[in-house]
């Protein structure tokens, strides 16, 4: 079973609020990823990191930011939530041999 955790699982929040989505893994993986996905649709890469103190923007423009101060922790922050941010956010890590990616259970965000 994958040891990658996301919290919260569900979040309903008002427009303009600041939120942080948490992602942690206990497998010591260097590469970590954040994706945005509408239910059953394509996964859009919004941020990735290949180690501590490295963060890169993905292919989908996003108003969110990430940090990677510790190997195991890769939080995503929205400074001012908007209804257009309503979606599912998935966090993943990949093992050092690059042979298997593990996903958290996702955070379903609704901005009202």
């Amino acid at each position, binding site marked *: 079973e994958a040891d990658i955790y996301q919290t919260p699982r569900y979040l309903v929040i008002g427009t303009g609020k600041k939120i942080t989505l948490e992602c942690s893994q206990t497998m010591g993986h260097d590469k970590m990823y954040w994706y945005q996905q509408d239910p059953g649709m394509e996964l859009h890469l919004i941020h990735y990191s290949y180690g501590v103190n490295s963060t890169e923007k993905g292919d989908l423009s996003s108003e969110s930011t990430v940090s990677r101060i510790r190997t195991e922790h890769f939080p995503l922050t929205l400074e001012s939530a908007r209804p257009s941010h309503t979606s599912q956010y998935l966090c993943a890590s990949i093992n050092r041999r690059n042979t298997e*990616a593990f996903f958290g259970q996702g955070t379903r965000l609704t901005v009202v």
Partner: protein
Amino acid sequence: GIQVEQSPPDLILQEGANSTLRCNFSDSVNNLQWFHQNPWGQLINLFYIPSGTKQNGRLSATTVATERYSLLYISSSQTTDSGVYFCAVLYAQKLVFGQGTRLTINP
């Protein structure tokens, strides 16, 4: 960047049928994975298959790297096989996904 395309986008079958899902990619890769996303949204890794063929129960996968495609075979489908199947490639540190194939298995 690399393009990853999957076909068909949707597939509806009766229980017991066999299916073939395809993944094409636009550049050379040495890392390809198949995933299943269940109706609750959880993504599970099925295969790491950069080349050759692998089998796991009723599922098997084949990648022909020189021709830039991979196939996922599902035999004797069960209703629990329903969901969305994604292929993904690791390219320039990014894990890039195709748009998925939605598989529905009816009883």
